[in-house]
């Protein structure tokens, strides 16, 4: 296997702190237990038996933003809800990431009207956008893995 072939019989792995930290971050990225609309139901599907997000170390949804690493904005963001989401994001401790799940969160989707914020990136920075209305659980998994890829390439200095 990968590790043992590198190890030989020395019992030592060499890596950088950055890589080790990023590896740990991708392995246990706790999402905020937070849903807005339809996409939240698909997000629940991803958490439940058939798709099982715990394979990616994400089974633990934290209901408080203080303990969460990942904000999955799942659903349409209304003007009334926007300050709340901003506050939730501000309350999350660094390092933190945002996935914009679905068309409504990414760009307003089919609702170009008075009530809907045209994309959650108008109020918070977004790392990964997922298309679909709503995206299938597989698409969400792909988005999460894409985020993991991004996190693996991050430099600690960027967060300092």
């Amino acid at each position, binding site marked *: 296997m990968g590790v043992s072939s590198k190890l030989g019989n020395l019992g030592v792995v060499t890596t950088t702190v950055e890589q080790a930290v990023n590896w740990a971050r991708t392995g246990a990225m706790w999402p905020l*237990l*937070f*849903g*807005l*609309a*339809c996409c*939240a*139901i*698909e997000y*629940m*599907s991803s958490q*439940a*038996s*058939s798709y099982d997000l715990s394979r990616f170390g994400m089974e633990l*949804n934290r*209901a408080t933003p203080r303990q969460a690493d990942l904000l999955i904005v799942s*659903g*349409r963001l*209304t003007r*009334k*809800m926007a*300050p*709340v989401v*901003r506050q*939730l994001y*501000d309350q999350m401790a660094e390092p933190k990431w945002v996935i914009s799940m679905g068309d409504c969160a990414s760009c307003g989707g*089919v*609702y170009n*009207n*008075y*009530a*809907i914020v045209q994309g959650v990136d108008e109020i918070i*920075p977004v790392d990964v956008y997922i298309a679909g*209305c*709503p995206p*299938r659980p597989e698409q969400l998994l792909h988005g999460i893995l894409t985020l993991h890829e991004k996190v693996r390439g991050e430099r600690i200095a*960027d967060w300092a």
Partner: protein
Amino acid sequence: MAVAEQPQSIEEQRRWEGSLDQLRGLVSERAITGETMLLNMGPHHPSTHGVLRLLLELDGEQIISCLPDIGFLHTGIEKSVEDKSYEKAVPLTDRMDYLSPMSNNMAFSAAVEKLLELDVPERGQIIRVVCLELARCASHLVWLGTHAIDMGAMSVLLYAFRERERILGMFEMLSGQRMMSSYIRPGGVWRDVPDDFLPTIKQFLLDFPAKVDDYEALLTKNPIWKDRAQGVGVIEPDVALAYGMTGPALRGSGVNWDLRKAQPYSGYETYDFNVPLGEHGDVYDRYLIRIHEFRESMKILNQAVARLETVQGPYRSENNKYCPPLRSELGQSMEAVIHHFKLWTYGYDAPDDEIYNAIESPRGEIGCYIHGTGANKPRRVHFKTPSFIHISALPVVAKGYLLADMVAIIGSVDIVLGDCDR
């Protein structure tokens, strides 16, 4: 990563939190003086089933009053529909009550059909019944899983979603989409059921009753579940009627009112099924009713699937002024091409008239009011949705119970905020 500065001066913070003075008249004077405690529940809370905010006034743990604050998911769907032709408005209705999109499609489509005086062929009606009952099961499964989680039974969700995935798989088979299917449309359904649908649903109908028994084995006689649910959130029949509650929340109080029986649509009068009723009107009775509804839906589905095999014919109206011609006709008939072009560009004119039509969704009566203009877009569309009405009754229902019972009550009336706020 760029992070904006922490916002808001104290004045700004106050402006959107509101001041205590604004609450005068809404909460008791005891809350203003600080004798009782004001507690915000939501809009971000795991057990409010969406973005509902409740302002609770507590005396110790007892709820003195409860003020629901809705609109966090107000999407302007009714307004958006005014700018779309009738056929193109169907996908928007999917996204109101996102746990049972088929019921919304049906409410809107049936209303449009009533406005146009359009008939649906028998096969189309049978397919609709299959979809509606599957949607009822799928919706109740989400309710069961989340309600159980709210009350501390964590594993039920995993079982419930296992079966829900199978139902969503069938929806995908029918329409190509798992959730927002837009399958039921004015005049019938989008297309006929594919060949592999019947074997799939038959297998599901064989398997599902045993699964419902499994859910019951987890909960029905569970002493913790009973303690949390029995005698909690009692809705008296007259209160339920006065607030206009419908669906399992009303039937839990023993009132026999199911639109499938009272005002049958889509041929429901020809199916043999019972309407389960509760006695006490508490959380436990509403739970039992939904469990029984699984079984009644199975009964209807068995009959409907048997009919699907015998009844052949068109699955949507053949009036090509309102329904698109078959795909296969497009290569052969110029008239079909003209109809197709006209329908997908302009739509069709509906009379300058107003109608209301209601159906029984998993949550209760979902009604659709349409005021036509004589042209291809409606002047006004309004949806009367069960969640909105059930939330309006929450203050009466929750009064006097403990804070911990609040999540049980919210779960048991089964609200969907997309349905409430639209």
